[in-house]
């Protein structure tokens, strides 16, 4: 199984540790992982802003970089949603269709494709609050959303429960959006920041030492909010915990 590692632009630039953890974790699990060096971004930001034609170049480049892999795996729910559901600024060739069908968000890849049983190297002796991004929750559906009447399930929790020493806390509104929303964070700054403040305060109030998520973009926003508020709470990507980071 040959896996193409997709490291979204903001992770490449600001959170390399998340990319490193994802790579190391997939390697520990015995996969052949390749990072195509010419990758940039999936085109989500332009497309979500309505400027679909401006996304075409990035989308074409994404397909060019990743069309030779069995699976394309990235530590980002929203980017995965873009590739899978919205990569349509370009002509829908068989190569595009293949890339769209084979792109996975890390948690669903570990849970559904690899069905990983254990992470013996992982230990995280902290209280964590899980933040499911709206993309993973309501689009990729890696966990039950509170609005829907269906049996409870959570792929990220299934994975995190295999980590030694971890404790979970639950905020009062576990699946309310944190307000990042891509360019929403810039063009709707007042609401975005207020949503972020409410989100980190809710986790902090529940006793979380860490907020863990499969989406670094949400965490980047929440971290900025928590630091400005002076809240003592830290942020970590699920890949880092599953790869054995202790703090």
């Amino acid at each position, binding site marked *: 199984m040959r896996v193409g590692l997709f*490291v979204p*632009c903001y992770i*490449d*630039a*600001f*959170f*390399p540790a998340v990319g*490193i953890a994802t*790579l190391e974790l997939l390697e520990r699990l015995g996969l052949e992982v390749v*990072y*195509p*060096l010419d*990758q*940039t971004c999936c*085109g989500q*930001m*332009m497309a*979500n*802003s*309505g*400027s*679909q034609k*401006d*996304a*075409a170049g*990035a989308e*074409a*480049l994404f397909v060019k970089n990743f069309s030779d892999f069995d699976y394309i795996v990235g530590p980002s729910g929203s980017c995965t949603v873009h590739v899978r559901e919205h990569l349509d600024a370009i002509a829908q060739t068989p190569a595009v269709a293949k890339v769209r069908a084979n792109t996975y968000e890390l948690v669903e890849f570990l849970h559904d494709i690899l069905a990983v049983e254990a992470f013996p190297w992982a230990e995280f002796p902290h209280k964590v609050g899980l933040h499911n991004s*709206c993309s993973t*929750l*309501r689009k990729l559906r890696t966990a039950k*959303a*509170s*609005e*829907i*009447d269906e049996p409870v399930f959570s792929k990220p929790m299934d994975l995190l429960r295999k980590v030694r020493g971890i404790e979970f806390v639950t905020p009062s*509104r576990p*699946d*309310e*959006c944190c*307000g*990042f*929303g891509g*360019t*929403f964070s*810039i*063009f*709707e*700054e*007042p*609401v975005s*920041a*207020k*949503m972020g403040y*409410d989100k980190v305060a809710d986790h902090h109030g529940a006793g979380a030492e860490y907020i863990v998520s499969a989406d670094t973009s949400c965490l980047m*926003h929440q*971290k*900025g*909010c928590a630091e*400005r508020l002076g809240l003592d709470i830290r942020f970590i990507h699920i890949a880092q915990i599953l790869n054995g980071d202790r703090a």
Partner: protein
Amino acid sequence: MKRIDHAEAASEFIAAKEHQEFHDRRLWDLRLKRDREAHGIPEWEELRELASRIKEHTLSHLADYLEEFEARARENGATVHWARDATEHNQIVLDILSARGSKTLVKSKSMLTEECDMRSFLERRGIEVIETDLGERIQQLDDEPPSHIVVPAVHKLRDDVSAVFARTIGAERGNNDIHYLAETQRRTTRPYFLRAEAGMTGANFAVAETGSFVVCTNEGNADLSANVPKLHIASIGIEKIIPRTEHLGVFIRLLSRSALGSPITQYTSHFRAPRAGGELHIILVDNGRSERLGMRDFWYSLKCIRCGACMNTCPVYRRSGGLSYGATYSGPIGVIIDPAFNIRKYSNLPFASTLNGSCTNVCPVKINIHEQIYKWRQVIAERNQLPFVKKEMMRIAGKVLADPRLYRAAISAAGLAIEHLPRFAIYNWLNAWGRQREIPKAPGQTFRSWYLENRKPS
């Protein structure tokens, strides 16, 4: 026409901390009650699916069902009018009232008459119009539009209501006891019911096979409006049609559970024929609905039963308030309806969303709200309605992200190489991000450079 600046209005709403926090809590509480009631019946998700299909079926046979409704209603003794748009609707109402010398109209809550701006039209022509729903009356007295389609004054605290009532209907200044305030409204509205020559209601559902319609309320004011005066006018949007009475069972079970988290509204009133010696006029209103029905991506929004569940769950709506949308319809449903009325004026609204999708999940008729928001953004960009700054940023970002060399230059060294990008783009971005948040610190190296040092490149 000027664009509505949702972000700016939201900023003012958030600055009124006590109001914003109450607003958020109150509506979140409705969302939680909705969850409890909805998940209390095992077939909830099936009901949503059924409701969605009934609506889609009806909308795709709308002309037939409307004609069936019209024929049955006429047989029942009602007078049926057709209004192409708001102007025709308002004129029809005025003509009905004028022909009978009616000077006073009591009405229950109707988003359609808000949409038609009927009240100000009639008032300018000497007709006194009294809103009889408590929330709507508060808004009328304060000369503000409703901020929510079900709870019109939800953005106000009791002190605000107390001040409005003291200023307008002689309530005791400073008395903010909610029972006192409600009683004052009741006492001052009641004489209008007795005096008015005409009453008006909307309709939640109109049944084609019987020519009857149903109004769901909690205060009983619609029943007084319809039953005390001799003349009853009902304004009904053409999308309110359902084929059969048996379908009501599906929608009635969904409506109040979704709206307020109660199993049913206090009053579910069926109107079929004029009372003895009275008149019943039904106005079927299009006002852009036929045009919407022809929009491939957006016709699903006509399934809406106006429950407001999408507003209650919307994290943006709860933090910005309904008035910040500057439109009759606010919140997620407003965001996908309003641009069809005026694309320039409402071009910012589809961006007042994080695309989180909670609205879609609570919608009792399964409107794909967040997908329509995404689609509207494309339409707005295609019609050249994006603000200049955003348009330029996306053009530049698109260019940089399509080219590995430009991309690497842009994120190299100190994180962001300002010389490669126009200054306005950088400063707009950083200023907005940094106003209330810390900016992420650029790490020593990018992932890519770490990879080149630590792995054998392919």
